[in-house]
């Protein structure tokens, strides 16, 4: 974990209620895809935990959905704003165990962490398939960005307005994969868990106090003992999960 001041370099709307923020600062503590950062915002007591979409040489990219007052305030931040951010939080995804053909499944704001993960897996020479799930066409983002990386991309929408009609699990049929990685709302994680035929890693969400393991606010039970989503997670392996 590292505390640093980042400067907002861009903050733009990329889909319905979804924003992409680019920041400049010290990203040296971000060591794995699937980690998150915790952002201090003026006027709010607790920090806002946001998953890392991408980071490279001092550039941090975050994608967030406006769901409450905190993210609403974030969406109004202008370029040049300085933000106090804790980086390098959480365990992140382990790519070593992916095999040759990993399958990535992101749902809604569970899509962003899949981006850095996809990049890493492709750099490791793996054949990556990505399924991106959204409610409706206006909420779709990053389809082109994933394609540009060189991954096979499938899009699903619950209402069928774009891509395959249904959930991410409806696009899993017929895909030959060696391992899976997923992030999204809990019902989606559970559906992926049930449908998957291989081992995998799932990223969970919980209301957090500190975000770095001190307060025990986000604990969960696993087959491997009690874990803190913020410190021992947010990524858990399929075998340890207790629903």
């Amino acid at each position: 974990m590292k505390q640093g001041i980042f400067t907002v370099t861009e903050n733009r709307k990329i889909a319905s209620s979804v924003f992409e923020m680019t920041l400049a600062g010290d990203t040296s503590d971000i060591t794995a895809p699937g980690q998150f950062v915790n952002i201090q915002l003026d006027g709010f007591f607790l920090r806002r935990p946001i998953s890392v979409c991408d980071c490279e040489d001092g550039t941090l990219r975050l994608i967030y959905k406006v769901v409450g007052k905190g993210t609403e305030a974030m969406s109004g931040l202008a370029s040049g704003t300085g933000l106090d951010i804790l980086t390098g939080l959480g365990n992140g995804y382990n790519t070593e165990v992916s095999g040759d053909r990993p399958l990535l499944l992101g749902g809604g704001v569970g899509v962003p962490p899949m981006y850095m993960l996809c990049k890493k897996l492709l750099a490791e020479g793996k054949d990556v398939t990505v399924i991106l799930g959204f409610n409706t066409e206006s909420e779709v983002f990053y389809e082109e960005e994933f394609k540009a990386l060189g991954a096979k991309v499938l899009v699903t929408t619950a209402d069928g307005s774009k891509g395959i009609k249904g959930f991410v699990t409806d696009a899993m049929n017929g895909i030959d994969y060696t391992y899976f990685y997923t992030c999204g709302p809990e019902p989606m994680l559970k559906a992926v868990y049930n449908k998957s035929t291989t081992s995998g890693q799932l990223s969970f969400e919980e209301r957090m106090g500190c975000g770095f393991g001190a307060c025990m606010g986000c604990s969960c039970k696993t087959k491997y003992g009690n874990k803190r989503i913020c410190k021992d997670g947010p990524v858990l392996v399929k075998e340890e999960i207790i629903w």
Partner: protein
Amino acid sequence: MVDLSVNLSGLTLDNPVIPASGTFGFGYEFAELYDINILGSFSFKGTTRDPRFGNPTPRIAECESGMINSVGLQNPGVEKVIAEELPKLKKCFHKPVIANVSGFSLDEYVTCCEKLDKEDQVGLIEVNISCPNVHGGGMSFGVCPDSAFEVTKAVKAVTKKPVYIKLSPNVTDITEIAAACEEAGADGLSLINTLLGMRIDLKTKKPVVANKMGGFSGKAIFPVALRMVYQVYEKVNIPIIGMGGVSSAEDVIEMMLAGASAVQVGAANLVNPYACRDIIESLPAAMEKYNIKTLKEIIGGAHNG
């Protein structure tokens, strides 16, 4: 040079700043960031006789200038704390530590305190009497002078180290509870624990935390905590560790003027992991600004004249 040292029942602290129980774990997360030996001491995660997972999640809700938690005393149990956490802690913290103890029955408090009393690393035992008493119909030990007296007496009988009773603010008159603890032989008092509070999510129209209610802490509660420390100082003659919303060197000075011999920092650690370090580093300048040479001389200073 200013003198930051304070005393708690024979224990000399380099400075009065102590991370509060439950906001600092067993110190490791913070030891990764800075040398935690700069702290006066620290109060480790509330420990019970048996391991506890705590309450269901969500356990956290945000408030204006504060937060609500309903963690529910998650801890590995006293045996594991002694066997695993204390040896690990010894590697990063070399000063006497404050052992924070909770229980749901007299017997649990006694067992826990007896065990921790034998540990060299423990300088002081802080007994949290805010949890519900399973034998008393779920009412907290800390809300009634008689049960506060009873717990204090029982714990004092099995310990040699100083015992500080941590008081709940959720009572009609905190000074009565304080007086009962003093009468039962408490060496000191810690106050205040969190204020019972709640939030309701307007979208779901249900309480935010799974346990419905939780403990409200953070900046917002500082004036309430300060007032209680002030009142208790007038009532008892034993040292007080003051806490509740402390987040700056100025707050530390204010708390000590109200009557605190040392000060704990809680929720502030969770939003700024460097909070205690920052407070300790800014104390000398704050003291100079207010013409204070020796910090312990200001304890209770607001009561004079």
